[in-house]
């Protein structure tokens, strides 16, 4: 009897230990590896995304579906894809990150994609904008934008408003080429002609390119440059008197990035762009977002990178609620597909086919509002797909 009792007790004890430990694993913190450029020429992107992620955590608490969220921030310097790849590997294997997120520029997202595929880890792209990014891994879902989506509306607008000849000036890497191709396709289909040049991504010098654009005598210059580069372009545009020569400046919203728009001065006034986000978007959600963001970051204005990061966290939280706290790659992606919510930018939907965003794209004009420069929206195209259709 005695032996039987002790055996019974042991079994109970073992069962209890097993129960406890399984309970403990459900309570383990969920680590999100956030890889963005925090130094180097594209540091503004990283700062914006990081600030937005922190704001989301502050507003929504750091526990979702019973799991505590921990964000591990890593700086990939923005110009070294091999660093991004290494950081993604380290985060997943050493730090046991269950989700990787961020990715400031296209080459960086490309570098991390195979890591996500191999580890079956969900990869939330919060910034980079080349169309094909989500195709690089079945575990990618994007909450920012795709360049063709941002470009097609301004191309149509330009054609509709009497422009016949446009000079395109884009940065020579994925998104720039996407923007150039889309603009050319849409604008020539409407009967216009397009000429253009590409500026190198590293150490750009815009002066000769802008001069060339001016000498080409187009109706408008269409510009795409990475977030943070807009002011250098704007300066040359003003100095070389393109506006005086009757040449308009149009582009995607990247060139009049909210983060630096106010420092560009009057030369930016009147620039017309199409984009998914403006800090001046007149919705209650956005007003609350901008106010909270500026308060938490010493007056820094959120730009489209910030809203991409904020919505990336919104996506992760909603998915974890659906999966009961599991970040298993296949479950995560299945839960993300078709999600739709109202973000500071307006309505956003994750397209189940492409795992990319479907959203409204706005036409905006730079105006002075209460003494500061803003992109004021004057028209919108509803539910634009990533490929611009």
């Amino acid at each position: 009897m005695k032996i039987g009792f002790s055996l019974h007790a042991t079994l109970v004890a073992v069962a209890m230990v097993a129960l406890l430990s399984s309970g403990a694993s459900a309570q383990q913190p969920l680590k999100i590896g956030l890889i963005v450029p925090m130094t180097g020429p594209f540091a503004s992107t990283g700062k914006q995304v990081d600030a937005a992620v922190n704001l989301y955590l502050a507003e929504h608490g750091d526990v979702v579906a019973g799991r505590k969220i921990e964000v591990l921030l890593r700086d990939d310097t923005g110009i070294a894809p091999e660093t991004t790849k290494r950081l993604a590997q380290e985060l997943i294997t050493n730090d046991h990150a269950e989700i990787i997120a961020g990715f400031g520029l296209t080459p960086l997202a490309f570098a991390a994609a195979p890591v996500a595929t191999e580890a079956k880890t969900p990869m939330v792209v919060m910034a980079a904008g080349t169309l094909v990014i989500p195709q690089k891994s079945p575990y990618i879902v994007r909450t920012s934008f795709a360049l063709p989506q941002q470009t097609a509306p301004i191309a149509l607008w330009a054609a509709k408003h009497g422009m016949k000849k446009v000079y395109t000036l884009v940065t020579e890497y994925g998104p720039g080429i996407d923007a150039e191709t889309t603009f050319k396709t849409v604008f020539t289909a409407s009967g216009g002609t397009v000429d253009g040049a590409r500026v190198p991504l590293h150490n750009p010098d815009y002066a000769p390119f802008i001069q060339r654009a001016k000498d080409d005598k187009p109706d408008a210059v269409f510009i795409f440059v990475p977030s943070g580069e807009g002011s250098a372009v704007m300066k040359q545009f003003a100095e070389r008197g393109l506006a005086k020569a009757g040449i308009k400046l149009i582009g995607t919203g990247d060139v009049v990035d909210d983060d630096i728009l106010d420092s560009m001065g009057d030369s930016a006034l009147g620039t017309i762009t199409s984009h998914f986000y403006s800090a001046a978007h007149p919705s209650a959600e956005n007003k609350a977002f901008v106010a909270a963001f500026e308060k938490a970051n010493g007056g820094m204005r959120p730009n489209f990178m910030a809203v991409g990061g904020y919505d990336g966290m919104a996506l992760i939280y909603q998915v974890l609620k659906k999966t009961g706290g599991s970040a298993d790659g296949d479950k995560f992606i299945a839960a993300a597909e078709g999600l739709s919510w109202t973000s500071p930018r307006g309505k956003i939907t994750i397209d189940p086919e492409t795992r990319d965003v479907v959203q409204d794209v706005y036409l905006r004009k730079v105006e002075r509002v209460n003494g500061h420069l803003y992109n004021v929206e004057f028209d919108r195209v509803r539910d634009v797909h990533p490929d611009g259709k």
Partner: protein
Amino acid sequence: MLTVLFDGIATGALLFMLALGLSVTLGIMNFVNLAHGAFAMLGGYVAVVLLKGWGVPLLWCLPAAFLISAAVGMVLERTLYSRLYGASPLDQVLFTIGIVFASMAMASYFMGAQHQIIQLPPFLGGQFHVFAGFDVGVYRLFLIVVCGLIALLLHIMLTRTRFGSQLRASVDNARVARGMGIDVDRLFAITFAVGSGLAGLAGALGIEILDLDPTFPVKFMVYFLIVVAVGGTGTLGGPLAASLVLGICDVAGKYYISEVGAFIIYTVMVVMLIVRPQGLFGRPAVR
């Protein structure tokens, strides 16, 4: 066409001022100072802080950038550089590249990684139209005038003053100059400070054109080295001609053949070095 030429000359003038100090230090002491760009960056940031933080007018920021860079150059020369004069080139390169990285880290810590943007005073902004196909940017014209005046001043200093003749003697043959009783070390300290100051001044002038950010010393190191390699050391004419050729080729290359524009300067360097390995005006090395 003329606009492109003009922009090229402006870029060249700026490069000349940036690289001049390096050419002199290399010429006299045979010291490879890769950290030269750090002094240019320092001048740029001094101007940015004064201009944006304290509201000092741009024209006063320029001498301040010169003086502060020169002072820092002098201090570093006396405390650090002077220890390495006899050292092997490898030690010198490692030491100065270390300074480059330290300066970059400090710049991004104190000033942030973003490009610095300044607003020019209105009388320096814009372009004026000379005739069809030729527009002159006011700021670039200002650059050319300032650089031209400084080159003239330096030329007079080198050829007409006692200091200048001592300097030329030291460049030609430091050992004999020392034997003749010239205090080469003092000469070098002064020249180093002036060279650093000029780099600082050029850094401040170049904020508008060269994109000032913490990667500046590395970004433009190649340009300085090309100017020195092509122009030869120890003269004014060599670096001046090399800078102008480089500036014009760079701008024209980007304008006319934008696909390969960024590579033009390297091609120019290779060709020039094949044709004249001793530099444009340099004499074959006698050492």
